[in-house]
């Protein structure tokens, strides 16, 4: 395999992320083959069940992303060093989570058109999911407000700790209210999973692939955010230096 020139190698890449990327790529191809060609049609849903192999994993990984955002935010707020790495991890995880949640909403909408005859219903699960999505867009907007990096980290950490409280509401919305959305097929309280073996394997394989994809994206994004912060800090340092020189010359 020929090596890329050093100018073309992404600066956020390491051998570990490269290997993870290759695994995720191969896994995605296998997931596509399993989901589209090898699994059977569902008795009730027919062929539309094939959308579930991307819809469900992206939803679960989006939850994981938002939980990681909250955990990293708590670590930043209450950690002894108020680590900025944790703040950037929270930001990167929320960004990727928003993309995954967007994918969940779009694929769910397409599945709804086939199963319910409509792209959208103001159903408890759909509404709470849309609300969660908008909340994290708000979180990203809060991160984009002005101020120092420390101010950004503190205010966005507080927002993240409140926003994560919505996840149980979304998950249990199908139980708490009368919902058009089907109840859990895998994460059931009685642990009784009524799915065909290969369908269940494909669904779980999808979760593994999307979790790997999430990890790859978050690592690269967190490193990019560190680079952006470093450039901004250098800009601030240069401005302070220039101001000092101006004072001395007066």
């Amino acid at each position, binding site marked *: 395999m020929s090596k890329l020139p050093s100018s073309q190698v992404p600066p*956020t890449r390491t051998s570990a992320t490269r290997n993870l990327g290759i695994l995720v790529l191969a896994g995605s191809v296998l997931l596509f083959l399993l989901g*589209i060609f090898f699994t059977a*049609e569902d008795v009730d849903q027919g062929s539309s069940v094939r*959308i579930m192999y991307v819809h469900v994993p992206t939803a679960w990984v989006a939850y994981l992303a938002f939980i990681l955002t909250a955990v990293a935010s708590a670590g930043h707020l209450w950690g002894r060093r108020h680590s900025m790495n944790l703040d950037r991890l929270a930001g990167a995880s929320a960004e990727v989570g928003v993309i995954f949640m967007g994918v969940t909403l779009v694929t769910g909408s397409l599945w709804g058109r*086939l199963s319910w005859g409509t792209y959208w219903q103001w159903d408890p699960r759909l509404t709470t999911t849309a609300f969660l999505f908008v909340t994290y867009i708000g979180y990203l907007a809060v991160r984009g407000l002005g101020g120092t990096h420390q101010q950004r980290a503190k205010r966005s950490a507080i927002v993240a700790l409140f926003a994560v409280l919505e996840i149980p509401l979304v998950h249990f919305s199908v139980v708490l209210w009368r919902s058009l959305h089907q109840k859990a097929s895998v994460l059931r309280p009685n642990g009784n999973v009524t799915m065909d073996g290969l369908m269940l394997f494909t669904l779980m394989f999808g979760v593994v692939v999307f979790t790997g994809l999430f990890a790859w994206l978050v690592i690269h994004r967190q490193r990019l955010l560190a680079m952006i912060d470093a*450039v901004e800090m*250098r800009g601030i340092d240069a401005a302070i230096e220039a101001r000092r020189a101006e004072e001395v010359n007066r």
Partner: protein
Amino acid sequence: MNPTGLIAMAHADFIIISWVLSFVPIAAYAWRTLRRARQIDPLVSKDDKPWT
């Protein structure tokens, strides 16, 4: 295991669009992240990239 023919699959358009709309935005986001990292790399010192 009986591989299903895509042409014979009901709602193949919806299913393929769902898969495309799942992977394309994620791939675009990944590409944008790597491109931005390459763009600002000359401005960042080695000390600010402890993973390298």
